[in-house]
């Protein structure tokens, strides 16, 4: 497979671990900076899906994890961790290529992702779709 060989900073793993175990973040946005994946933004637990969606730039690629809380039909409180590869169509080809070819390696570093999404416009990662995939 064609992979970029991009490195992943320790902070990514650390913060993801905290999101998973301590639940002290709602979401994390990652970006690729100088041949390494780094944390760009952390969302506090009381931030909403809208806050998360606004954190993704309209014309640049990002990776993100989102901790989604929901209630099942049996009235049971649950949460699932989403991994989202954000790659808007208007972003530059180079950026799309870099993010897509580094994704597999990066995802492996984050142990505990339950659902994966790739989105090229906001409608592909709307709250409805997230709900649909969580159930």
């Amino acid at each position, binding site marked *: *497979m*064609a*992979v*970029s*060989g*991009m*490195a992943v900073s320790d902070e990514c793993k650390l913060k993801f671990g905290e999101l998973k175990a301590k639940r002290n973040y709602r979401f994390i946005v990652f970006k690729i900076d100088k*041949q390494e994946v780094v944390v760009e933004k952390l969302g506090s637990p009381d931030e909403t899906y809208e806050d998360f969606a606004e954190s993704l730039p309209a014309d640049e*690629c990002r990776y993100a994890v989102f901790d989604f809380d929901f209630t099942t039909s049996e009235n049971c409180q649950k949460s699932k961790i989403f991994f989202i*590869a954000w*790659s*808007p*169509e208007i*972003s530059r*080809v*180079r*950026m*799309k*290529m*870099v*993010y*897509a*070819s*580094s*994704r*597999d390696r990066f995802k492996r570093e984050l142990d505990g992702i339950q659902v994966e999404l*790739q989105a*090229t416009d906001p409608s*592909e990662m709307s709250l409805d779709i997230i709900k649909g995939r969580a159930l």
Partner: protein
Amino acid sequence: MYGGDEVSAIILDLGSHTCKAGYAGEDVPKAVFPSVVGSIDQMEVDATEMENNSGPAVEPKNNSKSLDSDKAKGKRKLYVGSQALGYRRDHMEVLSSIKDGVVVDWDAVEGIWDHAFRECLLVDPKEHPMLLAEPSSNTQQQRERTAELMFEKYKVPALFLAKNAVLTSFASGRATSLVVDSGGGSTTVAPVHDGYVLQKAVSSSPIGGEFLTDCLTKSLESKGMTIKPRYSFKRKETRPGEFQVVDVDFPNTTESYRLYAQRIIASDIKECVCRAPDTPYDEIAYSNIPMTSYELPDGQTIEIGADRFKIPDILFNPSLAQTIPGMEHFAEIAPAVRGLPQMVIESINKCDVDIRRELFSSILLAGGTASMQQLKERLEKDMLEESPQAARVKVLVAGNSTERRFSVWIGGSILASLGSFQQMWFSKAEYEEHGASYIQRKCP
């Protein structure tokens, strides 16, 4: 591990119709030329050269230059590149190096590589790492042969083989997608999941741009319009604005060369006038559509009507090809050939249930034929009709036609230029230590 110095890598994408070559990091390939080669058996060459010396026939002045490219392989002489092929030669056959994604003539492939390195890019392959794009269906044997040739003959410092479909998918920002690559020689549908091609679900058909071009030629011929290859006539200006066309006869021209020269013109007609119809083609409904005119190189103006829509519709409904006089031989393979929407559905249905939804929503249209007007819209419409209710169908194409045509090459160019990629190369040292079969490990 290959250190990866400052020397930029070379990206080669040898398709069944055109070869794309250039430097990593650039936006478009530096050289684009046909991946067919002209070939003359050596014995006959001697004979024709004698004729030329005695007669007034003009040999091109670039004789010394063409000697480099014209590799005398065994008993035949190869002519590579648009220029060398553009000149008609007695007894020159036009051969393709690749059929259905598989190399059938390694000498021709070497000729093409030589031409790309030595004449188009002017590089010494010893100094540049090479990234080659390969078809999804490439066999292990072919890959090892490629590695052997690259390291032994060209002595490249490092090599990488990347799958066409994966490069296209990545270049559009997706690690999972269904790549519909409609190129010159064939159309291939390949699902990519997490950066891997799902081999079992790959399907391909021989209907590509070239097939459509042939259909168009035959259809025009059946209506009494013949496309004269550029070499077969001389056009003189007798008075300002007035031209006289004189046919010239070259009895020793091969049929394959005549077809090659004719295809160049026909494919331009196709690109200028054809457009995928919004709904399946219907002979009666289209019988009254306005004609579009096109001026042939010999000055003759032809009018094209329903064919503008009928030819592209063959992609969706291959059996239409049989209705064109002269294409009847297609009936032999027709039952096995599916239309584009069926190929897409069949391919998706061969994949795991869990990823089907994602594939339906990321159908990527790429390749030269993808530039056909309205093709994306029509495919999306047909897919909506034929896909399961719950599926969200989305067909994506790159914004401009350059990106569509060269998506594979562009993907390779970006990948090989990444600093972090330099550790991924299959290096010469590794080749010497582990042998050609190690390519399977380095470039899975």
